[in-house]
């Protein structure tokens, strides 16, 4: 099948998966013990008028089966319910706003840095296998892999915020400060982004490094590497043109799988650094039992993971000429 067909097929799989996730979401929140409508409207913080409106909107007095379809219909219209904590504020507003941007910036930048560093260092370590540099990086990676993300963040804060003041202690920007222009704002923001980004990035670096190194070592055993040597090509060409291109393929697939862990990692990082994003929102919503928001985030994340997974598969297919021809 051609490339386009592959993308189409993959997207279809993704849609099916999202659909399943949506259904799972529905089931989980509806099977909570006690008043089945509690998830949406039963919280005592919601006043009667709102509650009645919610019951009407979500058809909570109708049989479960009908509720399901109303739920789906509402979803498609972007109607995710109303927050318990921020009374009256639609969940979808809370999610698709400032917080989402903050989280995406954090996740994106950390992943990017971890990936690039992991690849470059991984290739280098594989090439200089067994040397002190190689072994040191392996040890560093195993150490950071074994470290809980949030603890590393806490250490960073302890040492580089409390003892030596390099990083700010919390938030995305200095509270109360009025920025004269966008540049100043960006600077402040980036300054606050440093520590959480390093934390999340470091937690992923180890995995990427070890995987890349492993993959490249595997590639080295392939026959075409001997051919490349036989052709008298330079070391750099052999490494980057011949070896790395082949090793990148599994790495890209790995990234797709990692998004889930990225979400968990981001949650914990945001909690430690009080970074105003979706992760922190989860933490707060758990404390406050704000179920509609939790449900909304759950959905958002499912979509995010599926999209990332489709993207990584598509990129993989694009890079690997063999897949374009292969049937599933």
């Amino acid at each position, binding site marked *: 099948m051609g490339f386009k067909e592959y993308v189409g097929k993959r997207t279809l799989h993704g849609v099916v998966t999202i659909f399943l996730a949506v259904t799972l979401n529905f089931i*989980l929140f509806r099977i909570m013990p006690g008043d089945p409508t509690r998830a949406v409207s039963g919280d005592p913080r919601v006043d009667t008028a709102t509650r009645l409106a919610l019951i009407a909107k979500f058809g909570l007095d109708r049989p479960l089966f009908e509720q399901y379809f109303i739920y789906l219909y509402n979803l498609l219209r972007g109607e995710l319910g109303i927050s318990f904590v921020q009374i009256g504020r639609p969940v979808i507003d809370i999610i698709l706003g400032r917080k989402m941007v903050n989280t995406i910036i954090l996740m994106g930048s950390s992943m990017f840095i971890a990936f690039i560093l992991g690849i470059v260092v991984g290739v280098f370590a594989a090439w200089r296998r067994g040397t002190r540099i190689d072994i040191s990086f392996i040890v560093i990676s195993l150490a950071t*892999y074994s470290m809980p993300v949030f603890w590393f963040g806490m250490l960073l804060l302890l040492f580089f915020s409390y003892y030596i003041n390099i990083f700010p*202690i919390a938030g995305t920007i200095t509270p109360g400060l009025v920025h004269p222009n966008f540049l100043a704002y960006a600077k402040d923001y980036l300054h606050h982004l440093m520590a959480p980004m390093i934390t999340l990035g470091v937690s992923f670096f180890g995995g990427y490094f070890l995987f890349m190194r492993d993959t490249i070592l595997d590639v080295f055993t392939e026959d075409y590497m001997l051919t490349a040597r036989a052709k008298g090509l330079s070391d750099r060409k052999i490494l980057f043109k011949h070896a790395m291109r082949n090793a990148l393929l599994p790495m890209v697939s790995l990234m797709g799988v990692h998004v889930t862990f990225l979400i968990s990692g981001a949650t914990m990082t945001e909690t430690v650094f009080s970074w105003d994003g979706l992760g922190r929102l989860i933490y707060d919503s758990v404390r406050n039992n704000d179920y509609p928001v939790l449900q909304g985030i759950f959905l958002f994340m499912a979509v995010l993971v599926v999209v990332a997974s489709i993207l990584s598969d598509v990129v993989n297919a694009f890079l690997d000429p063999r897949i374009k021809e292969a049937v599933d």
Partner: protein
Amino acid sequence: MAQESLTKGSLRRERFSTSVRRFRGFWALYRQSRIGMFGLFLVLSFVAVALAAPWVAPYDPRALVGKPFERPGEDHVLGTDQVGRDIYSQLIWGSRVSLMVGLFASAFSVAIGTAIGLVSGYLRGPIDTVMMRITDLFITLPNIPLMLILAAIIGRSVWNIILVIAVTGWTGTARMVRAQTLSIKERPYVEAARSVGARDSQIMFRHILPNIIPLIFANAIVGIVNAILAESGLSFLGLGDPTKPSWGLILRHANEVGAMATGRLWFIIPPGICIMLIAIGFAFSSYSLDQILNPRLRERRG
């Protein structure tokens, strides 16, 4: 040797002694790895501490035995937390939670993954497709939101944590087992077994599964590392059992009272070090295991 009768019993005995021999050879190889032995040492140390907790811990971890935020001193080796509980005792008892969650969650997740991967890879067809879609679904489930949903529904407990980690973690094993099954299925001896009339279940369990067991085992150990880290994360976020001392829980308290901003080292550093050490222990062991069991890695040494 020539005239031994091939009874079921004698075959079983021979298979057993072969396994023992193989294990001894494997152990000899493992002993050579310093990384592996160090890892094993760490693991066993924590297991010892966990088992001996009631006798080794100086205080009841849940009791208020001192003033809040006491610095490390004679009475309390690592000081006290924000309400006056002894941190050192909490650390000792916390090892139980970590080990329990690590071992059980990993075992369940590997069991589920292996079952699904084996069946899916062997039977193929519509069953395979359905199972793969389900696997895709479970890959997308991040454990944190799922955990809090479960916490809301059934309450907070260690077993819930184990359940959630297992339920969100089996997909990796499933995929690997399925891939292995697909390739082993094509091997001549499987075809031979089928032509002799072996049942599907026999082929799966007697022929395919034994070949995958080493890789499954390696996977399981890595799973333990992930489970322990996941448990600490979930406890940190407040999704664990607040009545059971756990390292993640200690760190949660530390975070809540802003211990970083007030420089309370003893509150922050020891629990993290414990998590790290136990994770490193399992990670190192799994690294050595992988070196021994993975044939491609052996080939590379040439």
